[in-house]
C-alpha cells in the first residue's frame, strides 16, 4: 500500500480514537451501562450466578430483564480482564443496586452518588469492549471497500464521525455496536463465501439482542443452494442461538425465556404490519436468481431492507439504529444518493429520539451533575414556538416515509439480482 494511504489511515484512526476517548469516561445514560455490567460482576464476586433467576424471583417490575446470555458471557470476560484496574467496583455496584432496585435512579442521581467510587475509570473501562468492536467494524469496512480507496476513505470518515455511534455507544453507553459488529462480520463472511461463519455471526449477534434473528431467514434463502442446505444452515443457526441459553435453562428453567416476551409492549397492530411486510420481503428474496448471483449484494439489500422496515413500522431507537449504520455506509458508498437518506435519518431520529435532557447535555452529568443536567435542550426552545410533540410526530412520519422509499430505491437499484427484474424484461 502507498505510504500516503497508510498515513491517512493512521491519521483518521487516531482522530477517531481521540474523539472516543474524550467522551468515554465522562458520559453515561441512566442505569444502562451499570445494568449491563452488574450481573457479570456479581458472578465474578461469587454472589449471584443466574441473573434471570434473580430477576424472576426478586424484581416485580414486569419489564425488567437482563440481556440475552451472550451479553452475560461477553461482559463476564471483560469484567474478569478489567477487575484488577477497578478496585472500588464492589462499592460502586452496592450503591448502584440500592438505588436501582429501590428507587430507580436517573443519570443525575448516579452521577451524584457514584463519584467517590471511581466513576470515571469505571465508565472508561466499561466502554473498552465497544471500542474494540468499533475498530473491528472499521477494519471490516476497509476489507469490503479496499478496492476503491476514495470510497473507503469517505466511508472511514463517516464511520469515525458517525453520530449514532458517538451518541448511543460512547455517550449513552449502550452495547449495540457489538451487534452491529456481528451483522457486518456476517456480511464479510458472505463476501468471503463462508456461509456457516456468516450464520454463526448472526446467531451470536441475536444472542445479545434478539432482533438480528430476523436476518437469518433472509440469509438462509440467499446462501442455501437447496432446501436441504438451507435446513442444515437453519439447524446450525438454532444450535448457536440456543446453546448459550442452555446453562440458564438448566439453572432456572423458563426464567431465561421471559426475555422473549419483552417486545409485547409494542402495539399489536404494528407487530402485525411488520410480520406481513417481513414475510413479503422474504417472498421477494425467494425470487433471487439462482445462477451468477452476487450473494454479497443480495445480503446487503436484504439486511438493509429488513432492518429499515423493522425500524419504520415496529420500533426505532437511536441505539437500535447503530446496527444498520455500517450497512448504510456501504450502501451509500455504492450509490451516492443514499447519503441523502442517511442525512435524513440522522436529522429525524435525533430530533425524535434524543429529545430529553439525559440524551443531550445530561449525559455529561458525571462531570457536574447539576450543571449538565440543567442545561436547556433544543426542544426547550422549539417548544416556545410550537408544541414539540407535533414536531416529533412530523419527524416520525418523515422517517417512516424515507425508510420505505429507501427500501424501494434499493430494490430498484438491485433489480438485476432478481429473476423477474425489469432489466430482464427489457432484454426479452
Amino acid at each position: 500500500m502507498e505510504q500516503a494511504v497508510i498515513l491517512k489511515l493512521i491519521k483518521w484512526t487516531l482522530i477517531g480514537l481521540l474523539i472516543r476517548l474524550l467522551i468515554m469516561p465522562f458520559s453515561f445514560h441512566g442505569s444502562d451501562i451499570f445494568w449491563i455490567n452488574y450481573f457479570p460482576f456479581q458472578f465474578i464476586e461469587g454472589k449471584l450466578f443466574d441473573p434471570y433467576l434473580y430477576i424472576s424471583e426478586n424484581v416485580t417490575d414486569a419489564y425488567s430483564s437482563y440481556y440475552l446470555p451472550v451479553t452475560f458471557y461477553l461482559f463476564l470476560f471483560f469484567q474478569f480482564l478489567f477487575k484488577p484496574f477497578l478496585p472500588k467496583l464492589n462499592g460502586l455496584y452496592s450503591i448502584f443496586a440500592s438505588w436501582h432496585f429501590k428507587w430507580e435512579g436517573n443519570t443525575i442521581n448516579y452521577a451524584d452518588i457514584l463519584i467517590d467510587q471511581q466513576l470515571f475509570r469505571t465508565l472508561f473501562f466499561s466502554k473498552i469492549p465497544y471500542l474494540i468492536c468499533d475498530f473491528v467494524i472499521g477494519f471490516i469496512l476497509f476489507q469490503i471497500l479496499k478496492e476503491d480507496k476514495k470510497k473507503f476513505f469517505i466511508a472511514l470518515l463517516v464511520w469515525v464521525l458517525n453520530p449514532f455511534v458517538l451518541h448511543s455507544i460512547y455517550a449513552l453507553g449502550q452495547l449495540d455496536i457489538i451487534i452491529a459488529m456481528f451483522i457486518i462480520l456476517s456480511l464479510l463472511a458472505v463476501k468471503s463465501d463462508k456461509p456457516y461463519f456468516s450464520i454463526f455471526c448472526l446467531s451470536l449477534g441475536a444472542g445479545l439482542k434478539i432482533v438480528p434473528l430476523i436476518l437469518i431467514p433472509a440469509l438462509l434463502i440467499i446462501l442455501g443452494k437447496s432446501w436441504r442446505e438451507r435446513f442444515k444452515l437453519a439447524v446450525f443457526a438454532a444450535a448457536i442461538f440456543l446453546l448459550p441459553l442452555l446453562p440458564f435453562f438448566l439453572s432456572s428453567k423458563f426464567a431465561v425465556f421471559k426475555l422473549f416476551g419483552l417486545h409485547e409492549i409494542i402495539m399489536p397492530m404494528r407487530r402485525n404490519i411488520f410480520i406481513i411486510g417481513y414475510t413479503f420481503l422474504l417472498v421477494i428474496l425467494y425470487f433471487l436468481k439462482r445462477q451468477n448471483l452476487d450473494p454479497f449484494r443480495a445480503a446487503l439489500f436484504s439486511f438493509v431492507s429488513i432492518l429499515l422496515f423493522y425500524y419504520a413500522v415496529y420500533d426505532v431507537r437511536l441505539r437500535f439504529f447503530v446496527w444498520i449504520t455500517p450497512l448504510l455506509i456501504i450502501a451509500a458508498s455504492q450509490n451516492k444518493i443514499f447519503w441523502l437518506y442517511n442525512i435524513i435519518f440522522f436529522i429525524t431520529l435525533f430530533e425524535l429520539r434524543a429529545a430529553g435532557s439525559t440524551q443531550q447535555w445530561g449525559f455529561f452529568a458525571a462531570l457536574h451533575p447539576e450543571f449538565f443536567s440543567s442545561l436547556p435542550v433544543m426542544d426547550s426552545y422549539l417548544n416556545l414556538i410550537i408544541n414539540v410533540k407535533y414536531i416529533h410526530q412530523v419527524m416520525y412520519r418523515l422517517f417512516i416515509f424515507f425508510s420505505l422509499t429507501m427500501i424501494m430505491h434499493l430494490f430498484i437499484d438491485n433489480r438485476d439480482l432478481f429473476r423477474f427484474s425489469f432489466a430482464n424484461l427489457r432484454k426479452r
Partner: protein
Amino acid sequence: MKKTKIIVLIGHIFLASILIVLVISIMKKVPNNIFCFLDIGTYGVPPESIEVNMSNTCGQSFVSNFDNLFMMSIFIPSQNLAKDGHLCFHLKKNKDDQNDLVTLKWRINEIRFLSNNFYIAPPDREITDKGFHFHFQFPPIRNSKNKEFYFYFDSPGTRQGEGIKLGLWDNRQYYEALTKGTLYKNNKPINGFLAFRTYNTWIGNPSILMDEIKIRLLKDRPFLIFYCASLFIILTGTIITCIKINNLKGNLTWKKTLH
C-alpha cells in the same frame, strides 16, 4: 456555475432569515433562568385520584436529592375545571412546622396545561387527554439537598364534590428517585403517593463550575494521569502523522514541478 452559486446564496439568505425570525420570536419568551432539571419524576396517568376541598387536605412528604428546589408539578386528572374556588399549595420543612416555606394560590379555572413550557419533561410522556401535570415555580430553596420537605394542597371554600381532584399512584415503582415519602389526608398518613414531580435549578458562575469539575476529576488522580497521558500520546501521534502527510504532499508537488 454562476447560476448554482446564486441559488446557494439565496438558500443561505433564506435559511438565515428564518433563523433570525425564530430567534426574535422566542427571545422574549425564554425565561431569565434557563437552568432546570427533573429530580423526582413520574410519568403516565395515575389510576386513582383524591379530591381536595374545604374538608379534605392532601399532603405528601419527600426528600429532595439536590439543592435549589424551585419548581414542582402535580397531576390533574381530566375533570371540569370551570369552577369557582381556589387551590392552595403549601411547602414546609416538615409536616409539623408552623411556617410555610412557599405558599401559592390559584383560581381553579386558571389551572391548565402549560403547552409552551420551556422546562419540558420528556414531552412525549405528557398525556394530555387523560390529564396533565400542572407546573408551578417558586424562589429556589438553597441547601435543599437530602432534606425532607412536606407539601400539601387545600381548597378553602369549596364543598364536597366541588373541589379539585389530584392524581394518585398506589405504588412507588412509578417514580424515579423518590427515596422517601408518605401521603397524608387531613394530616393522617394513608397508602399511596401524590403524582408529583420536583425540579431543581443550578445557581453558580463559570469559575465555581470549573472548580467543582476539577474537584470531581481529582477524586481519582491515578486514572486522571493515565487518561491525560493517553490523550497526549494520541494527540502527538495525530500531529506527527499530519506533518508527515503534508511533507509527503510537498515532496510530490516538488517532484511534479521538476518533472
